[in-house]
Each structure stands twice: as structure tokens, then as C-alpha cells.
């Protein structure tokens, strides 16, 4: 590993009152070079990098606290249990949920959605019923519903978006009706960055009594979330995109709904008593946490939440918005480059295509310059089809990115043009 890029160290201090140079020092990986060039990490929508505090927490947990939870009477088990449950409270506060028991630890957003599809869906959705999603869903918010629809004879309906990648609310409203039994929509689009009008989506669905799940994988790391203000019934996000470890995620569910749902998986911890004749299930949230959970992941996520809170999600959002505007301005001046996803309300995602080169070639040439972006369909094939592109190149921003890194991206794109001119 080499020293932090000095250019990056100077950067950011002038913007948003966020000391980005200092923040970058908290992320050891950002000091690396890749192919001999300073790493410019612009693939944050895929996964975010981890601050030292999170890494240290994992080491500390495994070094001094490792034990199973909710089981042992010994000191380590009690310590681990307390920490684990303490994180539930932190997540509850992060989302402004009403109660700790509304927070379920899962593997990630995908598992959270599958949990709702299996536990809520199989119980409440039957033949001829309808589930409404949007045209900009990640595959993880399409396939679980297709599987459910196939099993239950229900129908999946898709609310369209316009060419800018904005949800067409009137069309969405027209899709809703007495058959609508669930709405599941992305809060912030991973492929385009569109911020959907979540509160309106929820209000409209609730007029028909349909509960709403919001896929917050790209929202929770970048803005304050208040599930009570949004009024949503379920909210899902992944820890690894919020600067925490991989393999841990959150499902928030309104207590009344979770109470009425059957368990998702059977096993230890989710039971109150077991006999061969009859098993009594545990109360919330444990009913949905069968087996030994990802204890280290939960505790690491707690450290990530502390880290993000210390900076402040509102400040993070403000800084990332400035950076997005700067990036949009810079990329817009490049001849032959077209931004894909130009919604008025957007998070820090810059998806683009170029006349000169295919996204894969863009990705490979940028990689040679030390710049990490994502190329492909971003697990949103139907959206790509709707927008008439097979794939895009996507730069996704975080609060540790700088204007200098956007400049490096632009220089890298110049190199793409050079190779393909």
C-alpha cells in the first residue's frame, strides 16, 4: 500500500463543510494505488469501502468477544448479545422506527425482499391478486415477486418511467386498485440514481390498503430515512453499501404486519419451545432470525452506523449532491457521451454511454488508470431495455470522493476517446 494521494488530501475541504481529506484517512483502502495509479473508487453503488473503525470493530469482536448470542450464561455470550441487540437499537434510530422489534437482521436487501415475498406474500397474496413494482427495479425486486406470482397465480404489474428515468406517478396510480395486494419499489435507483417520491408512492398504495416495501439499498447510505414519516410498511437495505461488512442487512417491518406473518426459516433462536407434536415460535424479532446470525456483521454494521452518524447523513447528502452536480456538469461537456438517467431528483449516480466505445471498453481503460466504475446492466435488464441501452458505464459517488477524482474520471474518459478515435 502506498501513501494517500496528496491531491485527494487537499480536496473537498472547501465544499459542504465536510473535511473530506480527513475522512479519506479513515478509509485505509483509499490510499492504495492500482496499476500504479492512485485508486479512484467510483463503484460505491456496488459496495462501499470500510472505515478503519468498522475494520477495528470486527477485529476486536473476534479477538475479545466472540461467542454465540441469546444462548450462553457466560460473560462472552452476554457481552456479544448486548452488543448485537445494541445495534438493533442503532438501526431503529437510524430509520426512526417505532420499536426495536421491528428491525430484523438479514443477509442483505435481497434476503429482506425474499423474506417479505415468502412470509408475507404466500400468506396474503392469492390468485388474481396484483403486486406493483416500477420499471427501474433491481432484479432482486423483480424475481422474488415473479416467483411468488407463479406460485400463487398472482400478477406482477410494472409502473412505467419516462426517458429521464422518473416514475410516472399518474400511470402508477392507475395501476392501483382493489386487486393490488402489495407495492414494492426502489427508493433510489441503482442504475440511474433516480430518487423516487417514496412518500407519495406509499400514500397512493395505502388508499387501496396495499402495504408498501421500499428497497432502500441505494438510499439508506446517502440520506436520512424516516420510515414513520414515509409511512412505508417494509424497508430494506444492505450493510455493505452503508460502509459496513458484507453479508448483513436490515428488514424493517411494521410490528403488526410482522406479528401476523409466519416465520421465514425454521431453526434455532426462532422458537419458544419445540416438541415433535408442536413448536411455538419466538416473538419478534427473533421469529425471523433462525440460526446463529452474522453476529460480527451486525456489530460491524453498528460501527458503520456510528461512523456515518458522527458525520451526519444530511451533511453527507449535501456533499454528495454538490459532487453529483459537479460530475454531471463535467461529463455533460464530453462530446459523444450521454448521461443515462436525468431525473430531477437524483442521488450520486452517473450512468452514461459513449458513441466512441462500449461500456466494457470504457471500464477496462478506466481501470488501467486506477479508476473503478461498474459497467453492464446493473442487475436491471428490464430498465436497460426500456431506456434502449444494453449496458451503461456507471460512476457512483460517496462522501469520500472528491472533485479531483471526478477530474480524474474525465481525464480517463479522454483516454477512452484517444484509444478509440
Amino acid at each position, binding site marked *: 500500500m502506498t501513501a494517500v494521494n496528496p491531491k485527494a488530501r487537499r480536496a473537498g475541504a472547501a465544499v459542504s463543510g465536510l473535511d473530506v481529506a480527513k475522512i479519506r484517512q479513515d478509509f485505509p483502502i483509499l490510499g492504495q494505488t492500482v496499476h500504479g495509479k492512485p485508486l479512484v473508487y467510483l463503484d460505491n453503488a456496488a459496495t462501499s469501502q470500510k472505515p478503519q473503525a468498522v475494520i477495528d470493530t470486527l477485529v476486536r469482536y473476534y479477538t475479545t468477544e466472540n461467542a454465540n448470542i441469546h444462548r450462553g450464561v457466560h460473560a462472552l455470550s452476554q457481552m456479544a448479545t448486548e452488543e448485537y441487540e445494541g445495534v438493533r437499537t442503532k438501526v431503529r434510530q437510524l430509520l426512526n422506527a417505532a420499536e426495536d422489534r421491528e428491525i430484523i437482521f438479514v443477509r442483505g436487501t435481497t434476503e429482506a425482499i425474499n423474506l417479505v415475498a415468502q412470509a408475507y406474500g404466500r400468506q396474503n397474496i392469492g390468485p388474481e391478486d396484483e403486486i406493483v413494482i416500477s420499471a427501474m427495479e433491481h432484479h432482486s425486486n423483480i424475481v422474488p415477486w415473479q416467483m411468488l406470482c407463479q406460485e400463487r397465480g398472482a400478477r406482477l404489474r410494472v409502473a412505467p418511467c419516462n426517458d429521464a428515468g422518473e416514475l410516472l406517478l399518474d400511470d402508477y396510480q392507475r395501476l392501483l386498485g382493489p386487486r393490488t395486494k402489495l407495492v414494492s419499489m426502489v427508493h433510489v435507483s441503482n442504475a440511474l440514481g433516480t430518487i423516487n417520491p417514496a412518500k407519495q408512492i406509499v400514500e397512493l398504495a395505502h388508499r387501496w390498503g396495499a402495504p408498501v416495501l421500499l428497497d432502500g439499498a441505494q438510499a439508506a447510505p446517502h440520506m436520512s430515512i424516516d420510515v414513520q414519516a414515509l409511512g412505508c410498511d417494509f424497508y430494506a437495505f444492505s450493510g455493505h453499501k452503508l460502509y459496513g461488512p458484507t453479508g448483513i442487512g436490515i428488514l424493517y417491518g411494521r410490528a403488526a404486519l410482522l406479528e401476523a406473518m409466519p416465520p421465514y426459516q425454521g431453526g434455532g433462536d426462532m422458537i419458544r419451545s419445540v416438541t415433535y407434536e408442536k413448536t411455538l415460535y419466538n416473538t419478534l424479532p427473533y421469529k425471523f432470525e433462525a440460526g446463529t446470525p452474522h453476529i460480527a456483521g451486525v456489530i460491524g454494521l453498528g460501527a458503520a452506523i456510528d461512523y456515518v452518524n458522527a458525520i451526519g447523513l444530511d451533511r453527507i447528502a449535501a456533499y454528495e449532491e454538490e459532487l453529483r452536480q459537479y460530475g454531471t456538469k463535467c461529463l455533460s461537456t464530453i462530446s459523444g457521451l450521454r448521461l443515462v438517467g436525468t431525473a430531477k431528483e437524483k442521488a450520486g449516480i452517473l450512468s452514461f454511454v459513449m458513441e466512441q466505445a*462500449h461500456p*466494457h*471498453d470504457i471500464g*477496462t481503460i478506466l481501470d*488501467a488508470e486506477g479508476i473503478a466504475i461498474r459497467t453492464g*446492466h446493473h442487475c436491471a435488464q428490464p430498465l436497460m431495455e426500456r431506456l434502449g441501452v*444494453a449496458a451503461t458505464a456507471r460512476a457512483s459517488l460517496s462522501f469520500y470522493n472528491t472533485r479531483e477524482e471526478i477530474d480524474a474520471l474525465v481525464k480517463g474518459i479522454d483516454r477512452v476517446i484517444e484509444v478509440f478515435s
Partner: protein
Amino acid sequence: MPLDGLYGRIIMDHYRHPRNRALVAAPDIHARELNPFCGDLAEVQMKLDAAGRVAHVGVQAEGCSIIQASASMMGEALAGKTPAELEALAARFRDWLQGRSPEGAADVPEGLQALQVVRQHPVRLKCVLLPWVALEEGVLAFLRRRAGEH
């Protein structure tokens, strides 16, 4: 330089000036292969002569520079071969590209060897291989059809 000649002269020449792009009418062997992960598409048609050897080749590819170059380079290596020889060539090329070839470079025609550079970019190997997957599928379907006729 980390690109290690990925966008070198031969590959870029085939990308900019793809050979055998014209569709072959009424082909004996044809196949189309899509990589849904990136939208890459490769299509191949071949017409056999009376002796059962490839007389006309058509190869079309859509997508990144590497798949287009690979398709063009593949098309130049097919003329005069029997379906069985095409199968063997595809298998040899696949092994060679992935560094599993016992004979090394001697196993594949010289015209294909510029693609060796893609070994440094493992995620791009599938771009190179897609036209070859189409070729294999086409030959397999042809052999099955022929076996059915007899």
C-alpha cells in the same frame, strides 16, 4: 502500461474493419449467441462446399471492441474446415486462450494469437469466447441434424 496492448494494432484493426461481416444466405451452419450481462451478441453463418468444407463465412458481432475483433479474427480461421475440424479448433482455441493448451501457441492459427493479451484481463475472456460459443452451438446443431437425416 497496464492495458498491455489490449487495444493494440491487430485487435483494433479487426474492430475497425471487421472481416466477413456480410450475411451468408441459406447457410448450412448458423447460430446466434447473446450474453445478457452486457448485451453482447455474436452470430455466425457458414456455407459448406460439395466436399463438406467451409466455403463461405459470415460473422457479425455487436458489443465491445473485443468481441467484435474476436468475431472477425475467428471468421478468418474457418475457411476450408470440416464441421469436425471446426469443433476441434474451437476446443483448442478455448484451451489455448485460458492457458490450458499443452502445445501452447502452436495449437492455434497465427491470426488468432493477438488475442493472447486478453489473458491479462480475465473478465474480458467471455467477450472473446462468445463468437466461439456461437460457432460451437452452430456446428453441434448441424451435426445433430445430419445425424438425424441418416
